[in-house]
């Protein structure tokens, strides 16, 4: 059949379950990519590039798509960011590169993320590899946690000639790129392809080994010249209200993980779903519940629209997906029947004086209790800090900052052999994949500088932007 007569199904209920979990944006065709690339002005000292935490030379990689040098384009991207294929999909481009594109005002910004995806996918599909392990320098580094920070650090270290072993407690590497980013934003295969690329640089990844349980930090420190701690954060914390143990109450991260690792048709979901929280993870939970088929999905947040931590474009996405919002609403108790959740008791809130974060403090409205019926409740109120690991590191003199591992601008901790990066050090700023990748790069450069005295140029190139 003529291609364009194939029905465009844009209504969610017309799509099959599998279709609803395809990437939200289809890949660019060659023609689309070239047209979009040619729209880029190729600015000098381009603001888009300054806005990228990993400093990808955006105008150059886009121009290379325009001239037909797609291979070179991918190289330009990966030189600055080994996780370029993941970042192309998950970066909040609206507040990073695309947000600063000079065409923002008059036209519309260049679709940098999608162009980056076009180039990195091209290289991946063709199996092109750009980097080789460096000349072995005889030094050993252990990386704890195979998320974007750990993999980026491991890859950069391998390029410098280090012998690197990554310990990962989960079955697969990739961290939240594999387990936490919703599939319609990043399919698992994309993350696993990056893992493979890092392994091909000579990095050993040992899955199923939890540091602190299967191996101790003492052992790692004794056996290695340096270690990089990139353990991310933990699960969703307790809400500390009655009823949290009822059947039907889910941890948001586990829920997302299920959609990444299980067959979609086997995932249980409710028909009246409440999501507590209003961050990006909460939005992810709400939208996947909708796409799985939940009829009513309501997000409950104690402050108002203006204070919600989710990006505005994520909020808009949720609205478009048919998610409804209850602002200024605080859950006080989860109600159950026969051990199963069947409602959530809430009180209405008002906004009072600003608190320490500068946001107006929510205060109870007296006698305003009411019940929202639901058969599934998803908690998505953030992630717990890595208290266990921090306790294990304390004897080594590792200091903390607001409950996160404390590092300096070169991602050094207070112990000479221990470096750290990624979400577990993000005491301020937005926790994001691209920041984790940059931490890995900076740490690799610092380790190189400290142990073999190289990597000065890299260290300069990766100065924090």
């Amino acid at each position, binding site marked *: 059949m*003529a291609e364009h007569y194939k029905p465009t199904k844009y209504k969610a209920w017309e799509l099959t379950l599998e279709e609803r979990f395809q990437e939200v944006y289809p890949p660019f065709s060659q023609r689309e990519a070239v047209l979009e690339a040619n729209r880029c002005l190729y600015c*000098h000292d381009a603001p888009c590039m300054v806005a990228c935490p990993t400093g990808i030379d955006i105008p150059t990689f886009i121009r*290379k798509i325009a001239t037909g040098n797609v291979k*070179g384009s991918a190289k330009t991207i990966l030189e600055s960011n080994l996780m370029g294929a993941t970042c192309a999909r998950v970066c909040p481009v609206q507040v990073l590169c695309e947000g600063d594109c000079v065409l923002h005002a008059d036209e519309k910004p260049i679709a940098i993320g999608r162009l980056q995806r076009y180039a990195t996918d091209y290289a991946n599909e063709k199996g092109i590899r750009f980097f080789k392990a460096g000349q072995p320098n005889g030094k050993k580094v252990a990386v704890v946690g195979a998320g974007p920070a750990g993999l980026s650090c491991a890859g950069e270290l391998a390029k410098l000639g280090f012998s690197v072993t990554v310990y990962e407690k989960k079955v697969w590497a990739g961290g939240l790129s594999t387990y936490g980013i919703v599939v319609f934003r990043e399919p698992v295969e994309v993350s696993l392809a990056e893992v493979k690329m890092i392994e091909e640089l000579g990095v050993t990844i040992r899955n199923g080994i939890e540091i602190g349980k299967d191996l101790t930090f003492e052992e790692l420190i004794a056996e290695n010249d340096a270690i990089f701690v990139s353990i991310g954060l933990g699960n969703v914390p307790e809400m500390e209200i009655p009823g949290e143990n009822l059947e039907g109450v889910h941890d948001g991260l586990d829920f997302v993980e299920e959609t990444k690792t299980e067959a979609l048709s086997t995932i249980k979901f409710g028909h009246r779903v409440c999501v507590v929280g209003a961050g990006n993870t909460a939005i992810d939970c709400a939208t996947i519940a909708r796409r799985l088929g939940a009829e009513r999905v309501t997000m409950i947040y104690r402050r108002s629209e203006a204070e919600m931590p989710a990006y505005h474009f994520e909020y808009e996405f949720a609205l478009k997906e048919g998610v409804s919002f209850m602002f200024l609403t605080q859950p006080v108790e989860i109600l159950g029947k026969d051990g199963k959740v069947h409602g959530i008791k809430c009180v209405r809130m008002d906004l009072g004086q600003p608190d320490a974060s500068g946001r107006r403090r929510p205060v109870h409205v007296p006698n305003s209790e009411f019940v929202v019926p639901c058969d599934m409740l998803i908690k998505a109120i953030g992630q717990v800090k890595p208290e266990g690991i921090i306790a294990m590191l304390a004897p080594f003199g590792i200091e903390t900052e607001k409950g996160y591992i404390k590092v300096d601008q070169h991602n050094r901790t207070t112990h000479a052999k221990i470096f750290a990066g990624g979400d577990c050090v993000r005491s301020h700023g937005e926790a994001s994949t691209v920041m984790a990748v940059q931490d890995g790069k900076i740490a690799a450069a610092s380790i190189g500088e400290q142990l073999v005295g190289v990597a000065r140029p890299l260290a300069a190139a990766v100065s924090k932007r």
Partner: protein
Amino acid sequence: MPDLSINFCGIKSPNPFWLASAPPANSGYQVQKAFEQGWGGAVWKTIGAPVLNVCNRYGTMDYKGSKIIGLNNVELISDRPIELNLKEMAEAKRNFPNHAVIASIMVESKKEAWQEIVKRTEQTGCDGFELNFGCPHGMSERGMGSAMGQVPEYTRMVTEWVMEVATIPVIVKLTPNVTDIVIPARAALLGGASGLSLINTINSVMGVDLDTFELQPNVGGKGGHGGYAGPAVKPIALHLLSAVAADPDILKSRLPISGMGGVETWRDAVEFMLLGATSVQVCTAVMHWGFRIVEDMIEGMSNWMEEKGFETCDDFIGKSLPRVSNFGDFDLGFQSVARINHDKCIQCNLCYIACNDAAHQCIDLKELKITDEAKERLWPVVREEDCVGCDLCSRVCPVDDCITMVEIDTGRPHITWNELVKSKPEVLEWEEMEAYRETANIHIH
């Protein structure tokens, strides 16, 4: 990685990408910055006779949202003091001994003047000369530039004067503003030139302002012809290059050619080299984007060479030259027809209207029922027996690879026009031509 280095009549360069003699190669600062960023060589902005420049030197051809697909200029040769140019040239060469530094020169038509500037400039240690016989404005009115390049006798004479004293290679830069560029090219050859370069800019007037009636470029209310360059002139440059490169005299002499005129990407550069250029020069693209474009040029060409299995530039320089031919030698029996891929067709019907209004009315709009849409639009379908194979529809079709021209065998004899008129001179009369067409299965209505 493939080896991009070239040897241009003894001038060595790490890659074939040179700055053309023009504003980007105006000073030591610029040339050295360009070398740092990867340019293999630079032809210094022409030095020689004293000049004064005017303001508003440029006019551009902007097309549907794209800026500068063509650039016109009324700039003259270098207006910087000659001593300064020579000092900086020497410095650039000293700092970049492995890069090609070529001095472009132009003085009035006097033997002493040419020989003096050659001797003086050689002291900089530069690798070669380029004789500017091409500037089409300002200098030509003073008997220099294209005024020399347009008269083959002058081209040869001045080349001979220079060759008498020069101890380094001399490239003659040709003007495109002639009827047949092969003639001045041969004149340069006879004059003893070591290499050729082309094209300089093309005479042009860029446009007229609809409100003020002023020309573009506008020099205080007046305008005149200037030199045209940039992507828009590439097809003209490729033609002139192929004409010179395929000329038997030039081929035999093995004079290397430096090609330019619209080179902006590595793809353009490869095309110039396939048609016989040993190096390529770039001006407008650098004026638009800066020196930084060279990184992609080098990388793109290397990737392409690797893909094709070429190890050095010599492996592909001139590879398309054997295909340069003439109308009289084309195969009249080669037949093609347009075929539409209805899976790709988006039914814009541009092919239909093009064929109907401007070709041979052999595309019909038909009901095909290839979908189950109730209101399926009509589809363009080629009546292949009537298609003359002109290729217009596939050129207008906005979808890549949707209309392809496929070769078919209609049993027509494989004969060229030249062969035909030699064996059957009578076909030059319409009646005999009709008779021949009958026998050759050619039906045109």
